[in-house]
């Protein structure tokens, strides 16, 4: 609060001053709880999407690509949901200073790029997963590499916010 941005508070300042921001700062258990949920969400996102990316790159052929996608995608989506919900809660406690931080800005940029990658992947290859192993598309495999690297980087940047 005392270290909020001077002058025009902007949207981040408004969020920080909101009832949610206030509650996140003042409740003794909400902030640690949101931290735990954020970590759970990260595990739930990164393990299935990492395994799916590896499968797209040709590892673990005992499972077909369509089966791997059907099994793993819902877990990743659940993880993403937990991450966004808990992330908004954590962000609201300290939004003003956080938006001005380079690590946080980079994390949000990479998050947007990775979500765009997911959307493009689904648009391009959703109907082509059956014959992935016979003719694995180069662009699709590049997308899997970017996804794997991107999520690991986003997770690392998130952890770095606390040490910036």
């Amino acid at each position: 609060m005392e270290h909020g941005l001077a002058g025009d508070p902007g949207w981040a300042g408004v969020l920080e001053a909101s009832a949610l921001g206030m509650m996140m700062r003042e409740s003794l258990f909400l902030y640690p709880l949101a931290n735990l949920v954020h970590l759970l969400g990260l595990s739930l996102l990164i393990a299935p999407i990492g395994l799916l990316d590896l499968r797209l790159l040709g590892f673990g052929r005992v499972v077909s690509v369509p089966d791997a996608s059907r099994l793993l995608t819902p877990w990743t989506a659940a993880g993403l949901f937990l991450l966004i919900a808990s992330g908004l809660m954590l962000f609201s406690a300290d939004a003003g200073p956080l938006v001005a931080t380079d690590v946080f800005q980079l994390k949000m940029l990479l998050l947007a790029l990775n979500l765009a990658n997911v959307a493009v992947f689904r648009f391009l290859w959703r109907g082509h997963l059956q014959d992935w192993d016979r003719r694995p598309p180069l662009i699709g495999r590049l997308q899997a590499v970017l996804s794997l690297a991107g999520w690991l980087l986003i997770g690392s940047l998130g952890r770095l916010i606390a040490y910036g």
Partner: protein
Amino acid sequence: MVRPFATATVILAATNLAGPVAAHHGWSSYDAATVLTVEAPIETASYAYPHGEITIVSEGKTWRCVLAPPSRMDRRGLAQEMLATGTVVTVVGYPSRVDESEMRVERITVDGQTIELR
């Protein structure tokens, strides 16, 4: 340990203002080689996440003292009521490399009780 009201003892080895831009939270953005000890009454206090904070004024200089997360302070016996405005505290901490009015508190003494905050 009885010292005059609002007396400040500042042990300053060197002030290093150069450092990473936009550093905010971790211990790395504080100069641990410079140990400050300041005794002064609390001007403002916040017992809030991600970390508590008090401001104190000593020798005309206002210090924003970054404390620990409320859960940790509570667990170690530093209750919110102990950080009341006007209460004289002694803080031992390190100056920020980014903001010269900010310090990170390693330990705080309130009502004769010393609480470690790291």
